[in-house]
């Protein structure tokens, strides 16, 4: 019985803190960099989702591991637009062919181009600190050095 009041009080404090925290995460204009997806990029993301590309590929290391990470595929040496389209057209190993129209392929490439602009993965130039923390190398903005 005596736990109930204390528990409710702590719960109330946690919920107030959680509400403020969520409000900040949802509304912040400065926490996520300056790159926004264009309408064409959003259509490309729809194609990415409709074909569940994320089940095999990762963006920022998040996704399935059967295929490679594609965060910076657009700007990688010797890769880019034609390389992406060739794999979509032909498939390889466990990757099936995808029958996308030229317009859809353009939109998908646009999406990957804009994702590429948001940052690096793997973050090869991240700085490891002696306390275990890692300072990321940012592409468009700089929060820490």
């Amino acid at each position: 019985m005596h736990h109930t009041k204390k528990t409710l009080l702590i719960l109330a404090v946690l919920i107030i803190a959680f509400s403020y925290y969520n409000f900040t995460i949802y509304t912040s204009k400065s926490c996520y960099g300056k790159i926004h997806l264009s309408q064409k990029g959003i259509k490309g993301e729809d194609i990415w989702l409709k074909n569940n590309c994320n089940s095999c590929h990762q963006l920022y290391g998040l996704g399935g591991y059967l295929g490679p990470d594609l965060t910076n595929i657009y700007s990688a040496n010797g890769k880019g637009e034609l390389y992406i389209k060739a794999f979509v057209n032909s498939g390889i190993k466990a990757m099936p062919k995808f029958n996308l129209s030229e317009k859809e392929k353009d939109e998908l490439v646009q999406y990957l181009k804009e994702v590429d602009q948001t940052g690096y993965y793997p973050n090869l130039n991240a700085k490891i600190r002696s306390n275990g923390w890692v300072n990321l190398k940012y592409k468009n903005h700089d929060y820490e050095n």
Partner: protein
Amino acid sequence: MVGLTLNTKTMIMKTNKYSFYFITAGLISLLLGLLAGLLAGFQYVIPDFIKETLPFSVLRPLHTLFVISWIFLAAIGGIYYYIKKGNQKLIIGHFWLFILTGTGIALSYLSKNFEGKEYLEFPSYFYFPIALGWILFGINYFRTMLPAFKSWPAYYWMWGTGIVFMVYHFTEAHLWMLPYFRDNYIQNITLQWKAGGSYVGSWNMLVYGTSLYVMSKISGDDSYASSKKAFFFYLLGLTNLMFGWAHHIYIIPNAPWIRYFAYSISMSEWVVLFSIIYDWRKGLSKEKKATYTLAFQLMILADIWVFLNLFLALLISIPSINLFTHGTHITVAHSMGTTIGINTFILLSSLTYILELENPFIQLAQNRIKVGIQIFNGFFLGFWIIMLVMGAKKGYWTFFAQNISFAEFQDSLHWIYILFTVFGIGLLVGLYIIVYELLKNIKGIINRVD
């Protein structure tokens, strides 16, 4: 007197019939989830294997759908059983909503109809029946339990909290579809993993609450579940649920305070359950251990997996280690160690506790389950270790050997993938033996009630 007891018991059983339906559906989901996982594993070894009919992009979401359904359905079935007096119409409505929605999602995946983000790849209209199912569960739970809420032990708080936060975070996971959020990719990926991390925390509230309940009942002593320590851990777990999710996205280029904050909180999460189980084991008599042999053995195995995962979680929550382990199978080892190693053992312990009460196993069935547990646990340990090896190799390739192409790197792991699949087959066989015996026992109970 005996007649009255039996009548009362039969009445309670009839009220709880749907809790056994939930549990049965959960066990069948587990079987299907393992099958989908194994087929997906084959594609690592033989890339062309059924790739046109059931590609990896279909098998992976099916695998996660069924395994997560197992955790939900078994936890919910157990809770309905334990609270006993729920509204039957709401329980039936909840059951059929989840079964029909789950079937619809599976069919949607099989027909390659995807729309959502990772782990929630289904078309967005499925959001509504799922959320409604959780709301019905919440209405039923709070209507049944609130009258006695002043004397709630910690596990009732955990279950109530898990239900409320599941509705919230499941909704949050769909916010990216709103125009306000849609074009900000980095905010979306941050939100996606915030919601994902927190709804895992929500179902952990259901599962850890179940473990605390089962441990209290096995020991016949509810005092620990009402102690200051149990409440401290409950509130610490809730703090983690709310704020400790960002170790998934240390590598995302968002503001560092988001990651700093999560780092400082997430380290405490595993100590919660470890301490609870440790304290409970210390105080348990030999007689009680003998009465609930299987439930006890399974809870001890959960304890071992808590220890292994605690160690791994602590390591990969350190950003300088996470930098190398992120995006590798070490993360999968952690998530599978949690869902299969901890959650599954706790839920199997809960189910065997219920079945040992309702329809005690004959010796042969008990022996078979014990063999199944040994096979499952042994092969799962191998499976877990192999994933750590695969993850270490991927981390090395990512940072130090990118002159080798991804295809060449995958080929170099061929024999490791074969071992990975063999261990996968082994753990599937072990779990199938256990699940078969449990389903046989449940069928006996349902037939008796009908």
